[in-house]
């Protein structure tokens, strides 16, 4: 089995990139691959917990929690997240906080990398 690292830079709401990243991660996990997920840019606003699931908007918290239970490793850019007004106590438990070198280190150990740029 391989290792896939996905870098997502799009916001949770505003495009379907984030939804796609989670669905791809789920498919890879189900096939037995190791998956790492990096949030940067506007995606760094997505680890906020207590998201309300309105049917007209993408919803990240529930699927993200389920994927982490299946072994998905998730990290958010600390500076990007703090800049968006989210403190660690406000964040989904289990999401790591680190600097950009986390992403580069995971890329180093990956068989494939999918970098999904922001808006």
């Amino acid at each position, binding site marked *: 089995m391989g290792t896939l690292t996905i870098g997502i830079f799009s916001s949770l709401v505003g495009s379907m990139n984030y939804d796609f990243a989670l669905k791809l991660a789920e498919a890879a996990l189900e096939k037995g691959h190791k998956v790492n997920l990096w949030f940067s840019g506007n995606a760094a606003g997505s680890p906020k917990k207590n998201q309300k699931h309105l049917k007209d908007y993408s919803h990240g918290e529930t699927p993200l929690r389920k994927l982490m239970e299946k072994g998905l490793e998730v990290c958010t850019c600390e500076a990007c997240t703090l800049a968006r007004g989210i403190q660690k106590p406000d964040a989904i438990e289990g999401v790591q906080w680190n600097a950009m070198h986390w992403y*580069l280190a995971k890329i180093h150990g990956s068989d494939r990398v999918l970098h999904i740029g*922001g808006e």
Partner: protein
Amino acid sequence: MGDVKLAFIVTKPPYKSENPKLAATHAMAYQTVEILLEEGQTVTPALCYVGDGVLNCLKGQKAMEQYGITSTETHLKNCLLVDLDVYVCKEDLEKFGISEDMIVDAEDMGAEKKIQVVPFETIKKVIEDANHLLYF
């Protein structure tokens, strides 16, 4: 694998979105990645500006005065200061009428590296040589 080569390709203009800045800051993170890697493992980034992305390389940016944020110019200078390879597409510069003397340098900070103005063929080679492509 000991060394992993990454090609950061920037096609978006500065300030319209956060992406071009994030390309530079992520590339620069190669300086500290070793704390998370095993001995002998390294990451070697190359930062390439093509298309509208070449506008990021203009010197004299006033981001601090206009927006109160660090300019892309400053990030580029820091990249040069840490010996990162930065390439800008010669043909795309010409399309915008940008001459080499209008490109950012970090001589005032003591950097030996300069942004390399190269034909697109050279950037294609950088992409071909990379293990992974990061498109901003």
